[in-house]
């Protein structure tokens, strides 16, 4: 249902004479159509604030905790956005708000023209841990979202096989998760997040638990997959170099309470390979991010 209004606006035929007709159709498609504004960014995060009341917290603190204070940024369809910040700075909280898993205290989150107040059902989610189901085989883990969405048919199975082939796991379709290494499990989790062709892929420090070499491998894999699928990605990380290596744009968060300190556009061209880590542009972006995080004093960058 949500796809219809978007197509309606984009249709070239909707301009001119048949305009009136399209307006009527637009009304018929529901009020949501009116919210669509073709020039608006795919995702807009405006003044988002999250305060956990004492009751929501598992710890015994009686004080409410401000997890996120005034987050603002935009992103376009197909972009890979890295959310970079120190541990516990609320970037994960923001990701969960975007996913509709928790309620924001105030502000606005618009994705594809819809205000997010509950899970929209067309996102992919990758957690820090692979979180696979030990009772399912690899391919059945990947097919889990399709079962929930009641689209588990042959086409879905073929797509799952294709995705697993993309990540180099063709030989493990029927394996159990515990037979795979951590990196392989996370690749399965990535396939699971992509199986239902989500509009938005949300990744919460997905490679944080992996060793450095596996992480570099996974970064390249993610870029390849993203090129293949054209997915829009929000990627939470606390690694400066990972953020810059992957992203079109890095959103740097300050310490708790988190607010967006700086936006760093990364102008390095895709496709990227590990070589670019040693280019001046990469180092420059790393320095910018380090300054924004307060790791490096700002004065040193004067030159």
């Amino acid at each position, binding site marked *: 249902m949500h796809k219809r209004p978007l197509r309606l606006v984009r249709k070239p035929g909707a301009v001119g004479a048949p305009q009136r007709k399209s307006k009527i159709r637009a009304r018929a498609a529901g009020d949501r159509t009116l919210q669509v504004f073709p020039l608006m960014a795919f995702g807009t995060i405006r003044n988002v604030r999250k305060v956990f009341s004492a009751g929501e917290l598992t710890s015994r603190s009686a004080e409410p905790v401000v997890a996120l204070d005034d987050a603002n940024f935009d992103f376009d369809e197909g972009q890979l956005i890295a959310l970079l910040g120190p541990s516990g700075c609320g970037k994960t909280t923001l990701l*969960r708000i975007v*996913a*509709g*898993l928790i309620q924001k205290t105030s502000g606005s989150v618009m994705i594809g023209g819809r205000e997010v107040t509950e*899970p*929209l*059902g067309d*996102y992919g*989610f990758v*957690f820090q*841990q692979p*979180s696979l*189901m*030990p*009772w*399912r085989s690899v391919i059945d883990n990947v097919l*889990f*979202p399709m*079962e*929930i*969405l009641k689209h588990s048919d042959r086409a879905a199975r073929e797509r799952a096989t294709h995705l697993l082939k993309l990540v180099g796991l063709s030989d493990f379709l029927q394996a*159990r998760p*515990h037979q795979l290494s951590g990196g392989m499990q996370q690749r399965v989790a990535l396939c699971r997040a992509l199986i*239902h062709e989500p509009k938005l892929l949300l990744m919460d420090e997905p490679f944080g638990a992996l060793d450095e070499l596996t992480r570099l491998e996974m970064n390249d894999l993610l870029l390849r997959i993203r090129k293949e699928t054209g997915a829009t990605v929000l990627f939470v990380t606390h690694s400066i170099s990972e953020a810059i290596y992957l992203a079109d744009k890095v959103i740097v968060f300050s310490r708790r309470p988190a607010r967006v300190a700086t936006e760093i556009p990364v102008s390095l061209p895709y496709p990227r390979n590990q070589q670019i880590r040693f280019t001046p542009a990469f180092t420059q972006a790393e320095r910018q991010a380090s300054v924004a995080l307060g790791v490096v004093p700002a004065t040193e960058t004067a030159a």
Partner: protein
Amino acid sequence: MNRIASQIGYPLIGTVFLIALWAFMCVYGNIPTVVLPTPDKVLHAFIARFDLILSEGWVTLKETLYGFILALVIGIPMAVAVANSRALNLMFYPLLIGLQSVPKVALAPIILVWLGTGMESKLAIVWLVAFFPIIVDTVAGLRSTPRELLELARSLRATPMQVFLKVQLPAALPFVFTGAKVAITLAVIGAVIGEFVGSSEGLGFLLLSATSQLDSPLAFAALFALSFLGMFVYLLVELAERLAAPWLPPAPQRH
């Protein structure tokens, strides 16, 4: 091959050693048969009265299994209700834990007064002892579903039924079987207690009547039959676990 041989070999050596010690004590300690019959007398009684042991064992087996199944059928849905409803949980869970500390054996005479000396009272006693580990472990299992899996399901707008059937229940299955294994061993005890308190059949009754007639070899034969029965039903549950949850690593590796 070597591993399998040692897995069978060592317990066998242990058993043979114990039986030898037993026989040695009887013969050289001059222990009367009424107090402790020699192993060969017990074996002889076991073989000679095998029909009797089998028919009485069948009764005890039925009491054990039916009571255990009853505990599963009632315990698991109750666990699901308690785990998913905050109100039900607050109302009943502390009560359940409290009730668990009541010595159920002490209730056996009362249950006998209520339900008579037939099968019903045995089922009630078996149910009572087997019910608690099943419900407590199932609740624990349902509550320990990984948060990420619940969020994944929620992000896909899964219905509560889907969440339960596809995430919570399979995730809780190992816990359910842990509870079931404790429950099945308790179930055998429950059945024997029921028979002790008032019954005219079953291995417990056989044991009781044999000792009252000072027929110790038969009493010991009944005792062995009981332990075989206990092992048999335990293996049944373990087999069910292997079939229902084949993803679990084999038991020895979990310790």
